[in-house]
């Protein structure tokens, strides 16, 4: 033991002595040390004088509200906890302590006499007999010290999205239990949601290898998001050389295959303890909105940027919905076959005359059959239709909601209800991106639903809500307008009102309905108009949301967009 290390060990022993926190054996050790080691009594007396000086200095100079707050009986202050965490990170490396008792004397080797040889043979005979007894005894001791590990159910798999388990792992299906003390579960693809008995929810994302315990989970690699309720406080995630203990919160952990891990705290706070084997563990409290990284190669712990939206916080098996903390659902993405969070495909849509999912823009005009077509291939879209108010109220939902506010159209439409904003090459028209006020729409950043008049699409809010349990839809927002590119592309359309041909001028109305009732209707819109903002609240009981564009006149060149159509969650 180095002198410095020895000083630490002795100092800690003396601290414990003054705190009356030593057992008889340790007291005896100090007694022997003081009695026998030269300089020990002087060291002890100096230590006591310094300790007394420190104590009296502290007592003499302490006063004031700050200290009163620090030691308030009302509870432990955050300042104290933060100081403890920082101080613990500075603590010296923990070495295996030297035994306090002296070592056994070394065995003496001597030449065997004849009698000794007899005694040796005798001992071998006895030793042989004893071996079995010793083995039996060892077995008994082993069974007491290392009792057999039983497997207990700890969590249930409740949801999964495209989950694929490794051949080397047990395959877990929905509603199956996961057990403690098993070989690691290896998830090669997809996501699974585990719910613990105390209510803790954990979503694990592949590739991941993990085992479960009653109060926690060991993540060898992979990433997860944990939502811990009050009953689950103290729930832990163990990673190579790091452990993250919940203090009432939501947090995410990512571990790479080298064992380095990241902790991202989204809500509340988490206790982090990390350190390489043989060195001291660095513990600290990580608070909401912050993240820490532990490097398993060198033991370094550092603050990193929060990546809250990189972790799946909710999944749903039926709709394959994966929510990563987004504050809104993109309805254009849903039209493209996605879950509203970016999994949909651009230029995929729904044909309003059939309700079929199509993956190309049909540059054809067709006539309304006045039928509401259910959509089977998209969980969140209830149906589509071609509106024509001239035929009376229009059915706008699978439950028969009707709306009588729509204008009399000529009953035709072009293309389909599409996730995108591309107009395809057609005659004199070149393939191009549609624009509203100089902004091109139809990509991931500027999502839009393209509907060449006259068309309508109805979303099922109930199914959307079911896919994100616990989240409330607060409001709907979108921009609506007709693409100004029509003036660049067509020689028949003039931006100048004086030169407009009323027969060819694209004009129409945008409608947004909730359960058949009109919540928004635009003025008569033409491509020269600025896009209109739409925003209104959605109630918990609202079931269907319908977007419609109705063309007036001959229904040509009405390249209509619902841009950035979003349902917003009520989350702070």
């Amino acid at each position, binding site marked *: 033991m180095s002198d410095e290390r020895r000083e630490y060990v002795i100092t800690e022993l003396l601290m414990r002595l003054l705190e009356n926190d030593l057992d008889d054996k340790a007291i005896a050790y100090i*007694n022997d040390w*003081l009695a026998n080691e030269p300089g020990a009594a002087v060291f002890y007396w*100096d230590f006591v004088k310094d300790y*007394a*000086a420190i104590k009296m200095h502290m007592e003499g100079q302490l006063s004031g509200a700050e200290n009163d707050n620090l030691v308030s009986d009302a509870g432990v202050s955050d300042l104290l906890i933060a100081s403890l965490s920082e101080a*613990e990170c500075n603590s010296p490396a923990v070495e295996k302590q030297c035994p306090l008792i002296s070592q056994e004397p070394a065995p003496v080797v001597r030449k065997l006499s004849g009698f000794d040889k007899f005694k040796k043979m005798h001992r071998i005979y006895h030793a042989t007999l004893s071996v079995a007894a010793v083995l039996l005894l060892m077995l008994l001791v082993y069974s007491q010290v290392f009792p057999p590990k039983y497997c207990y159910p700890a969590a249930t798999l409740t949801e999964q999205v495209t989950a694929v388990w490794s051949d080397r792992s047990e395959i877990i299906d929905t509603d199956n239990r996961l057990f403690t003390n098993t070989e690691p579960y290896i998830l090669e693809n997809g996501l699974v949601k585990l719910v613990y008995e105390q209510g803790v929810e954990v979503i694990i994302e592949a590739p991941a290898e993990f085992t479960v315990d009653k109060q926690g989970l060991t993540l060898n690699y992979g990433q997860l998001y944990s939502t811990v309720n009050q009953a689950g406080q103290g729930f832990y995630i163990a990673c190579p050389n790091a452990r993250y203990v919940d203090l009432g919160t939501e947090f995410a952990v990512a571990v790479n295959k080298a064992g380095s891990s990241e902790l991202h705290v989204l809500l509340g706070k988490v206790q982090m303890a990390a350190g390489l084997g043989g060195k001291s563990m660095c513990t600290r409290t990580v608070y909401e909105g912050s993240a820490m990284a532990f490097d398993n190669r060198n033991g370094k712990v550092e603050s990193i940027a929060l990546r809250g939206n990189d972790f799946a916080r909710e999944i749903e098996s039926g709709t394959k919905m994966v929510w990563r903390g987004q504050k809104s659902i993109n309805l254009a993405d849903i039209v493209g076959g996605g879950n509203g969070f970016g999994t949909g495909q651009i230029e995929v849509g729904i044909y309003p005359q059939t309700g079929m999912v199509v993956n190309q823009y049909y540059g054809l005009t067709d006539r309304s059959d006045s039928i509401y077509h259910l959509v089977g291939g998209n969980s969140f879209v209830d149906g589509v239709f071609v509106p024509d108010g001239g035929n009376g109220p229009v059915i706008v939902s699978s439950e028969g909601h009707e709306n009588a506010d729509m204008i009399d159209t000529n009953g035709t439409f072009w293309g389909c209800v599409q996730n995108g904003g591309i107009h395809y090459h057609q005659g004199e028209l070149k393939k191009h991106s549609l624009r509203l006020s100089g902004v091109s729409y139809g990509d991931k950043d500027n999502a839009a639903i393209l509907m060449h008049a006259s068309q309508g699409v109805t979303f099922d809010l109930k199914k959307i809500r079911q896919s994100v349990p616990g989240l409330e839809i607060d409001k709907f927002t979108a921009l609506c307008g007709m693409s100004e590119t029509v003036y660049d592309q067509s020689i028949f359309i003039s931006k100048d009102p004086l030169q407009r041909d009323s027969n060819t001028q694209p004009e129409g109305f945008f409608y947004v309905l909730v359960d058949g009732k009109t919540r928004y209707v635009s003025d008569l819109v033409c491509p020269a108009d600025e896009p209109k903002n739409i925003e209104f609240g959605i109630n918990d009981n609202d079931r269907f949301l319908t977007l419609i564009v109705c063309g007036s006149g001959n229904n040509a060149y009405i390249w209509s967009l619902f841009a950035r159509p979003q349902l917003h969650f009520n989350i702070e």
Partner: protein
Amino acid sequence: MKEADPKNARFIRLYTGIQARLYSYILGMVHNRSDADELLQETSVVLWDSFEKYDSNYSFSAWAFGIAKNKIYEYLRENKESKKLFSDAVYEQIARVADDSGDDILDRLETVKKCFSKLKKSDMTLMVYKYYSNKSINQISDLTGRSGNSLYKTFTRIIVQLRKCVGYQMRTGDYNV
């Protein structure tokens, strides 16, 4: 304003001058923080009660230490069975070292003050908490949920750091350890 009682004032002046040394002596002999606090209190009461018997021709310090030693021996005798104590030989050795040790507690106090200001803010906070609240390590452990072992490691590190600074300064006058 009422005039200060001359006896009071004199006693306080004399007692304040030896209090730190008296405390460190008691602490070193009984090696138990809370018992040392109690014994110092008891000793000060005896000193005050018998202050009128004190002959000012003699050293107040010697008189006070005589009374304190009696209290200590009484404590050791009474607690021989119930407390975890050292052997008589060790107490004799400690007492010898204490008698030979210089009276430098006030210098240490002054030095601690300077060295304390060099601690990290978090370490200062912990020390303030422990001594201002007069809590044991185990009480702090219960309150904060930290393990006692971890807290001992932390406070040991701070004490070692302070002692290094104090020792170096007392030898060299330099605070930059």
